[in-house]
């Protein structure tokens, strides 16, 4: 079991504290939803956890060892990161793009090993992109592209998966498919942090939620504990509509508060 933790992370940009002493944890086997209004610092936190952004203070640890003690390759093998609305500079084919996920595993530039091929195929099947294998990335719809970029991250078979708004560009069916996939991946032993804007998806599919507001963690815990009225009022200035189906509670943003 692996655990990725951000400990008391702080980052200032000028007078503004973007991360103001944040603790964040994900362990293998769980899907953690990172929610909060725009500008709360979600993407910054995710990038800090992925070692893409130096922080002013605090540390990121993987299994209690600082990630900076790992080699870049080792880190890349264990932690995958998918940026928000990522694009490809060149119209490469889907199978080649997913294959880039094998780079940390020393994939040769010309030839992929059988293990590489197997990992790429598994990742494409899991994301339902195997039928697109030979298509060029710039011919895909934005939903297809999101799933391909997710497949790219899965191809590296990481322990921890960091996703910045993985369902933003997807239609409802695809959103459900991706969230189900994340749950399945967690069940197979991956730890997932996903930045989400959709509170109903967050409440349904995440094991835990972390609600960020103005660079701090406003609330953390089970969806029920985090999505309380006073938290939503403070963070989003909304009043939710609550319901239940199939024995599961869900939350919908319903009314703006003045």
């Amino acid at each position: 079991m692996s655990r990725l933790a951000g400990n008391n992370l702080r980052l200032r940009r000028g007078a503004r504290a973007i991360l103001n002493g944040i603790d964040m944890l994900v362990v293998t086997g769980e899907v953690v939803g990172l929610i909060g209004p725009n500008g709360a610092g979600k993407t910054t936190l995710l990038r800090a956890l992925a070692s893409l952004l130096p922080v002013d203070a605090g540390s990121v640890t993987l299994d209690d060892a600082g990630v900076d003690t790992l080699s870049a390759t080792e880190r890349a093998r264990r932690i995958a990161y998918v940026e928000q609305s990522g694009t490809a500079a060149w119209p490469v084919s889907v199978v080649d793009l997913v294959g880039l996920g094998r780079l940390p595993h020393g994939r040769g530039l010309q030839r992929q090993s059988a293990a590489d091929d197997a990992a790429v195929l598994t990742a494409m099947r899991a994301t339902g992109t195997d039928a697109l294998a030979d298509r060029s990335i710039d011919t895909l719809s934005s939903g297809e592209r999101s799933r391909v970029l997710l497949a790219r991250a899965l191809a590296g078979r990481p322990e921890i998966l960091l996703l910045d708004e993985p369902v933003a560009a997807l239609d409802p069916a695809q959103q459900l498919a991706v969230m189900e996939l994340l749950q399945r991946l967690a069940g197979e032993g991956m730890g997932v942090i996903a930045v989400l804007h959709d509170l109903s998806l967050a409440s349904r599919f995440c094991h835990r939620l972390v609600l960020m507001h103005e660079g701090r963690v406003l609330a953390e815990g089970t969806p029920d504990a985090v999505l309380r009225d006073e938290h939503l009022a403070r963070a989003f200035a909304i009043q939710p509509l609550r319901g239940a189906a199939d024995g599961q509670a869900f939350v919908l943003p319903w009314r703006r508060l003045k």
Partner: protein
Amino acid sequence: MRAMPALLLACAAFSALSLCMGPHGFAPGIVAQALAGEETGRLILIELRLPRLLLGLLVGGTLGLAGATLQGLFRNPLAEPGVIGVSGCAALGAVIAFYTGVSTMLPLGLPLGGVAGALIAIMVLLALASRDPRISTLLLAGVALSALASALTALALNLSPNPYATVEVVFWLLGSLSDRSLEHVFLALPFILAGGALMLACGRGLEALTLGEDTARSLGISIGRLRRLAVIGVAFAVGASVAVTGAIGFVGLIVPHLLRPLVDHRPAPLLLISIPGGACLTLAADIAVRLIGGEVELRLGVATALIGAPFFLYLVLNLARRAP
């Protein structure tokens, strides 16, 4: 990579043809004379046509590879040593080294001057690109750098005490392979080989960079190291090339663009295949200028610009259409 054997074959064919070209067109008699052991033939083949061929291969390969490297690094199909001002600054560096006599005092002064000029240009561009990654910014900065470099080159030549220097701005800005010697080949060779090796080592990094800097770094690629490799590699190879043949434009633009579909648009194999591609295009252009003839030969850069500039326009229009 399926195209590699065909490109190598084309290179060999152009090489053979290049050796058979006299200054006024096809003249294969010299090769026969040289093979028969005749002195005049040997002299012309070994001391005139061979250096011309070798420089065409080396410099053409360099420009193709540098174009592919810069396009991958800037994630921009319009990046090219000439267009973004790297060649112009290399020419300025070489001009300063040559006309001040540094190149006579220092054995490698000439290529080092070109390398220094190229290095400064790419550093400036990278600094700009990191602040504002838009394609237009890069191109406009390149235009400004090119204009500045050619103005300073003309100024340096004007200040030279030698009255011939003033007209030599044409050589430096448009390039030529004619009447170069094996000395020029040996002068540039170590820098071109070293720079080429550094650029080829960028393959993995450029592949990862297809998905942007953040994703590349999350894949374990050090962007800083990748930049250093690419910048020093391009500066070494292009700087030394320009120092011995002048700035030959557009090869680095045309070649990677034409070859990209043949390698499924992947940056790493594109690097490798752009070497014979650049060599082929440069040799073909150099054969063309000799076919056109004239006592004072057409500059090679004129020939490559005649193909390259319309091509560049086409690319700009195409990109504008794709990203409204």
